[in-house]
């Protein structure tokens, strides 16, 4: 099982290729069931086009490491939250230039104030949201008012 886990820790998200499916909290379970390895995953967003690629990548990586009989199951419940992104995942996102989600998704209500998003390049708090949506469903567009660089923010959901 530790081997299978370490294989999954090297399966990268196709759209953010520095964080693995384990870092993102997509892998929700790993178990032996009647002779095959069962992997439980959950989609980040309902329409995330990467979900099917992720499923295939997981299966391929496991087969290549000798886990010939694997089954990948997708489950919606409980719904994925950015709270499941690991600390290591958050650091990798920041190093890649994507500001990690701020705060806990549980506490964010409909009318909540916009979060203080740190610039991943110069750490300034003086940033501005340009658009609620970015290049993928999981990100928003921001700009730093100090170093003037635009950057992606991983939405807190």
């Amino acid at each position, binding site marked *: 099982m530790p081997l299978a886990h370490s294989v999954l820790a090297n399966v990268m998200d196709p759209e953010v290729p520095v964080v693995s499916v384990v870092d993102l909290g997509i892998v929700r379970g790993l178990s032996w069931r009647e002779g095959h390895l069962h992997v439980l995953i959950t*989609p980040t*967003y*309902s*329409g*995330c*086009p990467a979900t099917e690629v992720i499923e295939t990548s997981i299966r391929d990586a496991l087969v290549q490491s000798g886990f010939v009989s694997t089954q990948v199951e997708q*489950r*919606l*419940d*409980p*719904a*994925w*939250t950015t709270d499941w992104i690991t600390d290591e995942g958050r650091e990798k996102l920041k190093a890649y230039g994507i500001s990690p989600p701020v705060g806990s*998704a549980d506490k964010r209500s*409909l009318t909540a104030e916009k979060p203080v998003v740190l610039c991943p390049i110069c750490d300034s708090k003086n940033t501005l949201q*340009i*658009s*609620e*949506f*970015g*290049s*993928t*469903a999981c990100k928003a*567009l921001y700009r730093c008012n100090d170093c003037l660089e635009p950057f992606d923010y991983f*939405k807190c*959901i």
Partner: protein
Amino acid sequence: MKKYDELTEFLLRMGDSALIQAQRLCEWTGKAPALEEELALMNVGLDLVGQARNWLEYAAERIGDEAIDADVLAYRRDERNYRNVLMVEQPNGDFAVTMAKQFFYDVWQYHMLTQLRGSSDERVVAIAMKSLKEVTYHLRRSSEWVERLGDGTEESHRRMADAVDSVWRFSYDLLLVSDEEAALCADKTLGDITQIADQWQSMVARVLAASTLEVPAPAEPFYLNSRNGVHSECLGILLAEMQFLQRAHPDASW
């Protein structure tokens, strides 16, 4: 027109509404007023396609016919078998009309999904919980646009007021709860969605007031009836475009 059991009909209503709203949003590809807005419209559409797939997959499983899956439901039904709410099939108009439709639909989704979390059907709960996170985000954005345009310049105010006026009459269909749905609420299959009209009107009134827009009187029913497949004429045209590939080349894939 084919009718399925009450829960399946309800799943089709949720799934078809998300799908048709997403298809309308896609029509903005290449012509949104700004690049950031285009990204946003497409991303909302993408979330909705995903939600539609979740609802339609469940509907297809309940129908229990091997030949019917979510794709068949989406691409091989004609307008009389579509169950989407009338609001979402209306043409996009200008950006104000698009945002008015999005806002009215988002408020409806927000309250419907909130209530559906209390269903006894686990699958409905799972889809509702997942979708609600995304819809809350959509609603924040669409209500901000209604406010920005309504409480903006003279021109944007006039356009937003016209937009509200042009689609308001379809809200009766959005807010109507059928006897079959009320029965599903009574036996707890669905969470209590019977208060949707009050919940929708109260949130909409609050945002319109903050946007310096007038709140129209509740819309009166007229002859169109989405539950019986009696849609406005624009749905057929929308489906002709959306379904063309699968109709011309059945089972085409890449």
